[in-house]
C-alpha cells in the first residue's frame, strides 16, 4: 500500500511530531508510515484522514501486489 502522508503533512505544515501528537502515536510510527514500512490499522488510517479533513482513499492507495 502506498501513501502520500508526507504531501498532506507538508500541506498542513505539520512536523512528524505534530502529526504524531494529533493521532496519539509515536514519531517513529509516523516515520515508518511515510517510508511505507508499516501499514496502519483502519482506526489509524481514519484518524489520519480526520486530521487532514479528507478520506482515507486520498491518503492511501492499494498497489497491485496487495491483491495477491
Amino acid at each position: 500500500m502506498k501513501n502520500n502522508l508526507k504531501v498532506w503533512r507538508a500541506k498542513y505544515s505539520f512536523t512528524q511530531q505534530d502529526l504524531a501528537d494529533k493521532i496519539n502515536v509515536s514519531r517513529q510510527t509516523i516515520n515508518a508510515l511515510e517510508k511505507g514500512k508499516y501499514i496502519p490499522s483502519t482506526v489509524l488510517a481514519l484518524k489520519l484522514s480526520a486530521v487532514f479533513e479528507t478520506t482515507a482513499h486520498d491518503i492511501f492507495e492499494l498497489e497491485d501486489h496487495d491483491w495477491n
Partner: protein
Amino acid sequence: MNTNYLFPNYAKRIGWLLAVPSFILLCLVIMTDSPDFMEFTVFSIIPDDFLNQENPSYWVTNNLADEVLTLTTIIGGLLIAFSKEKKEDEYISEIRKSSVIWAVYVNYALYMLATITIYGFDFLWVLQFNVLTLLIVLIVRYEWYKYQLKKSLYEE
C-alpha cells in the same frame, strides 16, 4: 488500544534493575558455587526417591541461590519485555508481537540443536538456560528493533 496485558511504563526500569544483576549473579552461582547462607530447609512436593520410600521426607535441605536468582531474572525479564513504552501505539505492539514469534522460533531452534549435541546429565544445564533464552532473545530483538527505528528518525 487494548493493552491491559502490559505493565505500566515505570515497570520497565524496575525490570532492568532486577534482571541484569540477577542474571549476572545466576551465571556466577552456576559457574562457581552457591553461598552457604542461602542453604535452607524447604518443602518439596516430589522429594528424592519419592516412589520407593514408604515415608518420604517432604522437607529437604537445598541451596536456594539459583532458585531465587532464576525467579528474579524471569520476573525482571517479563517486566522489561511486557511494560508499556512511553508512547504505546499499534506499531510498537506489532513489533513486540513479531519479536515474540521470533523468540519462540529461535528458542526452539536452540533447544533442538542442544537436544542433538548435548547428552546425559549435562542436559540439565540446557534446561536451566532454556528457561531464559526465550526472554533474552525476545528482549534483544525488541530493543534492537526499537533502536533501529530511533536511528532511522535521524536518517532523513
